[in-house]
């Protein structure tokens, strides 16, 4: 008996887990319904909820009771009452505020924002539209396109919605007439042609009776397109945020103790991995991602939409409102920009007045310096205006007290948006979509005030290094060094070669070949190499540098990892045979004193970073060895960083 129950439980557990796994695979679509009052928005949502089995029995019972009391549908259930949740709404029979509803079909989960149709509640419609990816624009088949249809479509377009379903509703009341549908469809297409929608799909429906909502209607046999639900399931919403440049608005600095300093926020776009280089948008300071912290453990990488805590490799100054960004695709940092503005408040927008401007995490004072025009939301025409009244839309220039980091809204819906707040009442008075930065402020990336080695290197997009070539005269140092420099140069690196012979003609003209002079020779060259690497360069030193002690001295001058000893290992016999400058012959004949390998020792490196055995190989092959080493260093370092955080 007990045994049976267990088995049943296990079977149930498995099927529930299967079911939930299936739920997990579903994608999410957020959409809104909009259109004029009485076009049937609430009815449509009630229909969607009921036909996708989201309404519970007790809700249905309440609904039937309320329908008799307030309903407008005679004896039928008035679905509108299901969503008009506020007392004032039920009494007045209108939708005042946006309601969020949830339903799912076998392939998708949906969050619906049911938005009000009255012009006076446009701000509530905008609230619903701001987080939606698709809009169902409802039209009453008897009325056709109304002012409110156009207003909502324009606001949807301004707020970045790219997909429209044009639901021609109450088709039952026009005898399912195709001509009516065709006319409305054509009117809308004509009106919306400049609104930048990626798709407009017209569907003839009856929300009240359910035709073409979740169920294909036989009464509309001339229509062969998708039903409303089919279209909602099928529409492909760009999931491009992850592919865009990295943007991480810093929300909160998490500093529980002196050993941990993390920057918490939600990735607005792009992705980030441990070891990635990032730049602080406002200061231009660069660092690397050391850890991506979550409670469940550190992540290797994270994408747009994830809320994470980033730990950087360096102590850089960052506070809330700043942004961590991709070094090679930075946002604007500016204090003036042009924006589209929707006004929400009964007190009109006043150019010159100070408001608070808030982006996702930043806040500063702002004034509208110039109201360029008002957009007529009936025909999209631009009209001159001195102020913006409630529910009006305009284009303006805005000046902020402190520069903010942003993208254009067209490029990035998260980093291109802001709201305006009244300083006295704290009301949210407007919403803005940035069009572009203004000239004066345009494209100046703020360089950090103290230009240091890091900044210099960053400007060159490289890591400074000193490649120290050591080896006998004629071993091939200069040939290989020259080739290597060409290769680096070709890939955009900034380099410089310090060659023994050249330096001895200038800087070290006063030095001979005694041991003391050799030491001083190396010391000077090492100091120069250090200055150059501090300037951000990749320096290639090509010196015989026969003594270990001096090479060690040079190594110790540079930061760890920056001195790369390259042993150009060519046997004495081979060098003497090549003898490009005839020096070996002279030395061997005793005419040249203190010649390395002849009467002055060469102390071969014990553990050079790179050991080039040149015998039988071409200089090109040696350069490839150098290249391979560089590549390995870079990927090894990432691995080191990955482990280093734990």
């Amino acid at each position, binding site marked *: 008996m007990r045994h049976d129950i267990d088995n049943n*439980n296990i079977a149930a*557990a498995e099927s*529930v*887990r299967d*079911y*939930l796994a299936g*739920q*997990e*695979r*579903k994608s*999410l679509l957020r959409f809104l319904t909009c259109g004029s009052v009485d076009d049937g928005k609430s009815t449509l949502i009630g229909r969607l909820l009921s036909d996708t089995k989201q309404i*519970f*029995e*007790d809700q249905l019972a*309440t609904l039937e009771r*309320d329908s008799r009391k307030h309903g407008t549908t005679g004896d039928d259930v008035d679905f509108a009452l299901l*969503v008009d*949740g*506020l*007392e004032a709404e039920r009494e007045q029979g209108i939708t*005042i*505020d946006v*309601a*969020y*509803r*949830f339903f799912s079909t076998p392939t998708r*989960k949906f*969050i619906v924002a049911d938005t009000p149709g009255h012009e006076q509640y446009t701000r*509530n419609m905008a*609230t619903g539209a*701001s*987080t939606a990816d698709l809009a169902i624009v409802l039209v009453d088949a008897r009325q056709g396109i109304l002012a409110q249809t156009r207003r909502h479509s324009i606001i949807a377009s301004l707020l970045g919605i790219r997909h429209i379903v044009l639901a021609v509703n109450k088709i039952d009341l026009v005898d399912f007439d195709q001509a009516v549908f065709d006319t409305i469809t054509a009117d809308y297409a004509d009106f919306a042609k400049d609104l930048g929608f990626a798709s407009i799909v017209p569907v003839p429906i009856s929300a009240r009776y359910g035709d073409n909502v979740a169920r294909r209607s036989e009464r509309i046999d001339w229509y062969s397109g998708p039903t409303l639900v089919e279209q909602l399931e099928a529409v492909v919403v760009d999931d491009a945020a*992850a592919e865009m440049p990295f943007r991480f608005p810093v*929300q*909160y600095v*998490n*500093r*529980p103790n002196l050993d*941990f300093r*993390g920057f*918490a926020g*939600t990735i607005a776009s792009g992705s980030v991995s441990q070891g990635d280089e990032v730049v602080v948008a406002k200061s231009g300071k660069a660092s690397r991602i050391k850890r991506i912290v*979550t*409670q*469940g453990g550190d992540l290797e990488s994270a*994408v747009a*939409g*994830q809320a994470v805590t980033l730990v950087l490799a360096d102590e850089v100054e960052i506070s809330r409102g700043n942004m961590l960004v991709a070094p090679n695709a930075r946002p604007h940092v500016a204090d003036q920009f042009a924006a589209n503005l929707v006004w929400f408040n009964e007190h009109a927008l006043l150019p010159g007045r100070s408001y*608070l401007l*808030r*982006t*996702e995490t930043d806040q500063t004072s702002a004034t509208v310096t110039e109201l360029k025009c008002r957009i007529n939301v009936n025909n999209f025409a631009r009209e001159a205006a001195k102020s913006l009244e409630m529910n009006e839309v305009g284009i303006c220039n805005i000046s902020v007290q402190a520069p903010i980091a942003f993208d254009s809204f067209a490029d990035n*819906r*998260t980093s291109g*948006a*802001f*709201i305006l*707040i009244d300083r006295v009442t*704290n009301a*949210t008075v407007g919403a803005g979509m940035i069009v572009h930065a203004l000239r004066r402020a345009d494209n100046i990336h703020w360089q950090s005030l103290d230009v240091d080695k890091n900044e210099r290197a960053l400007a060159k997009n490289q890591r400074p290094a000193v490649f120290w070539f050591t080896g006998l005269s004629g071993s091939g140092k200069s040939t290989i060094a020259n080739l290597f420099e060409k290769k680096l140069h070709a890939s955009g690196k900034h380099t410089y070669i310090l060659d023994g012979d050249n330096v001895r003609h200038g800087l070290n003209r006063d030095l001979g070949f005694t041991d003391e002079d050799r030491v001083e020779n190396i010391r000077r060259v090492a100091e120069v190499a250090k200055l150059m690497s501090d300037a951000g360069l990749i320096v290639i030193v090509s010196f015989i540098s026969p003594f270990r002690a001096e090479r060690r001295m040079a190594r110790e001058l540079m930061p760890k990892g920056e001195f790369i000893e390259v042993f150009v290992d060519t046997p004495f016999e081979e060098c003497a045979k090549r003898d490009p400058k005839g020096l070996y012959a002279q030395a061997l004949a005793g005419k040249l004193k203190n010649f390395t390998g002849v009467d002055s020792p060469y102390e071969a490196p014990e553990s050079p970073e790179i050991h080039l055995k040149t015998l039988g190989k071409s200089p090109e092959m040696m350069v490839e060895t150098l290249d391979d080493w560089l590549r390995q260093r870079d990927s090894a370092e990432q691995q080191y960083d990955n482990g280093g955080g734990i």
Partner: protein
Amino acid sequence: MLARLTHLDRLEAEAIHIFREVAATFSKPVMLYSVGKDSSVLMHLAMKAFYPAKPPFPFLHVDTTWKFREMIEFRDAMAEKLGFDLIVHINEEGVRDGINPFDSGSNTHTHIMKTVGLRQALDRYGFDAAFGGARRDEEKSRAKERIFSFRDAQHVWDPKNQRPEMWKIYNTRVAKGESIRVFPLSNWTELDIWQYILQEDIPIVPLYFAKERPVVERDGMLIMRDDERMALKPGEKIDHRMVRFRTLGCYPLTGAIESGADTLEGIVSEMLVARTSERQGRLIDRDEAGSMEKKKREGYF
């Protein structure tokens, strides 16, 4: 190719974002901890949002003195285990006046012990933001509420005059005495909650699981007699039945359902076939049409 975020991933990230936003912008936030499953999820998300730090705000439980005993045990155990700062507030005036769900009526009891109690606590400590676990799918007026829901100095919600809430840019500004109720779970459905509890292995009060419990049938509901204070009316008798709770509040006001579901999977599978919405188990919502909205306007969560 980077992994796509699932539906739950997105909801989780949204909630974490909201937690951090409040911590970054308010001077004295608090989390309303009601000990129910939504509170458990909320607490779990708060721990995630600030890891490796602890949530930088206390948890407040408004105890009506009529909560299930198991809720109180669970509450204290969780506070101990997770190490958060727990404030328990009881409306002492209400206790002194002998307010209780039986003689005072469910409405008065809830209003005084819960709504007024909450207002007292918020005023006493001067909290300017309070997290709650309400979801938009629970009830019609909640479906209309903002994530950041403004309250005036009298804690009143004005549903006809809510602030627009654009994108994830929240207006967190309040004047002295005003406050904001914040609902990180706004966009979660009941199924999402259970799915998340299952996925994250979140501890919940055992009352959610079916067990044999002493219940009395009253007003069409199964009420568990959790202590001696509940007197039996003539004709009433105590039955021991396999029951569980879909929602938890004051025990005399919370209806149990008969069920054999003693695992999370069992609960979810029962829920999937259930055709009754969750608040049905609460007496207060049925008192009058629009009752929840009314309570919310008065400052109820």
